[in-house]
């Protein structure tokens, strides 16, 4: 099989993206395009964590958003005590810790349980996190500072892209590539894939499946934390459950769109959902939809993908 044929799915995905971009440019939706790509990058980053957990534990992690919200709370608290970057590091550590504890107390005991049971458990973890956030913090939002303040350095297609957003996009791209290489070229990455598909065989070869599970969840939590810490401050404030209410569903849709088994797909899917969402918000076509039009449009996209092409753009056919 030629290189072209092997990468056929990737080409289809890129072709669809290119078509979408061209359509948007042609219809003067430049702003929507740029905004869509930046929000989409955040979704892509969350989606990376979702696909990571799915590839290794076979479950949809509904707590992925809250890994990030907890990091935000820690950043907020520490920022008053130490410098911003120390606070940032501390927040990431907190996210990783949360992921580790979740893996130990929830994922481990449910190792052999049906995946749907584990899914409900992760939803429970998310709710618990939100409840504690409301309890320890308050139900109202709090302000949060950005890492990079400058907004006018770069302008793309007439839209100003802040430094914070540039940082987000750069981080996501780098991470997507690194993780892709990790799972295809490194022994550890291959081991994780093997463990998820054939845990018994993997154990027999001498690899500790349980230790891999812990590593994966910590990594996913770090990704969730990063997503929140870079993307949310751009909006200036945060509140309890913010990642779950604003990022989780679009990220999931993006992951499904990209194909739940593909890491570059997660990134691509996230960006596509960001673009679709931004178009749904601004285009006159969707004006009459009551409430938040983008929610409905994203839902329809999810249904369409599941009905027409369940393996997404880059996933493998089940």
């Amino acid at each position: 099989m030629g290189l072209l044929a092997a990468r056929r799915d990737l080409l289809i995905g890129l072709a669809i993206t290119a078509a979408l971009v061209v359509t948007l440019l042609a219809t003067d939706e430049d702003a929507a395009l740029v905004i869509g790509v930046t929000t989409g990058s955040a979704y892509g980053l969350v989606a990376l964590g979702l696909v990571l957990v799915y590839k290794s534990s076979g479950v949809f992690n509904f707590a992925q958003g809250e890994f990030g919200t907890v990091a935000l709370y820690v950043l907020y608290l520490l920022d008053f005590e130490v410098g911003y970057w120390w606070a940032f590091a501390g927040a990431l550590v907190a996210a990783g810790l949360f992921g580790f504890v979740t893996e130990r107390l929830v994922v481990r005991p449910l190792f052999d349980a049906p995946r749907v049971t584990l899914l409900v458990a992760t939803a429970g973890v998310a709710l618990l996190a939100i409840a504690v956030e409301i309890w320890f913090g308050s139900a109202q939002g709090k302000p949060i500072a950005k890492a990079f303040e400058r907004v006018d350095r770069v302008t793309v297609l007439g839209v100003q892209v802040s430094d914070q957003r540039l940082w987000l996009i750069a981080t996501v791209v780098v991470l997507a590539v690194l993780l892709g290489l990790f799972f295809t070229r490194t022994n550890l990455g291959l081991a994780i894939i093997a463990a998820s598909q054939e845990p018994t065989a993997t154990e027999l070869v001498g690899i500790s499946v349980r230790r891999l599970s812990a590593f994966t969840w910590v990594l996913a939590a770090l990704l969730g934390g990063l997503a929140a810490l870079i993307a949310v401050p751009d909006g200036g404030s945060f509140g309890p459950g913010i990642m779950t209410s604003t990022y989780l569903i679009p990220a999931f849709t993006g992951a499904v769109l990209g194909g739940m088994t593909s890491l570059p797909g997660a990134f691509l899917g996230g960006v596509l959902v960001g673009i679709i969402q931004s178009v749904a918000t601004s285009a006159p076509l969707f004006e009459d939809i009551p409430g938040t039009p983008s929610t409905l449009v994203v839902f329809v996209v999810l249904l369409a993908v599941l009905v027409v092409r369940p393996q997404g753009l880059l996933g493998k056919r089940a």
Partner: protein
Amino acid sequence: MTVDERADAREGQSGERQRPFRPSPAGWVARAVVLAGVAWLVLVFPLSRPATELVDFTTAVCYAIVALSLNVLVGYVGQISLGHQAFVGIGAFTSAYLMTVHGHSFWVGVVGAAAVGGAQALVLGGVSLRVRGLYFALVTLSYGLVAEQNIFQIQELTGGGAGRPAPKPDWFDTEWRYYFLCLAFLALVLYVDWRLMRSKSGRALLAVRENPRVAATLGIDVRLATLFAFVLSGTFAGLAGALIASNDTFVSPNVWNFNLALVFVIMTVVGGLRSRTGLVIGGALFALLPYLIEQIPGLDDLLADIPAPRDLTPELAPLVLGPLLLLLNLTVLPGGIGQQLRPFVRWLGGRRFDPRDRGLKEVPISDARA
């Protein structure tokens, strides 16, 4: 083995058929006393309480119905809905809408709400039940969000942010009478659920849940069975919504969110899947948690003493307690309250009290699709 030993061995497996157990007279009296106590708690005790408490009790009854409705999907078929609050909420608004905007009676509102609940499930299920459990859960979660952010923003339906009033029916317009009306509806739902499990549809669901391939080989249309369950679940949920609407005499669009979806799932799972007793208790418990915390002396002080930046108020406590109970339940006690209570329920029914009776064993579910 002697003949007697063989008989004992057989009794160990299916004792009821060999030598049926009969309680002693004292045993019967004890059972009657307990049942009388339960009847008193449910039927007599509320009569002496103030109206505001009756509203809470009625909410408990309605939540019990929601738990039963969610169990049809989660317990009998094995699919998870993380958007069930949408079905209940849309039922509530449908009833309020039919009563307020079109001047229909409460009864039309109830039937309309149930029908809309079933119709929603039919449409949503028709599209999304072809996908595996995890994806279906995601679709229901997404649908819940659409309900929250799009459907409940439809001015026509919900009166905007202000919400819609929902009056009680003519003969049941006091809190006490309405409570008994809702109890009657709960009894109806329990009856239909009981009949479901004694009919071919219920057996088909359990077969589909455990092993869809074998079920298909026995002539069961897996898609249709799952869709049927979903529609039934949606119908009950819509009914519960209508009852909740008139209980609160008002429906607001702001309460039907992801948190509520999870509360519903939690109370169903913690109550105990496939156990009617457990489900009713689970639903009632979660509805009454804030009330119970306030009633039990010293409990709210205890909660406030927990070291934390702020006090754990009775309103907040269920939100924290709920997920904890869920996680405990999923990891340690899968059968929930229902399973723990099973020995008592069997005892009440005239059987010997066997603390180790945990009901039917949990069997691993096949992931293969037919």
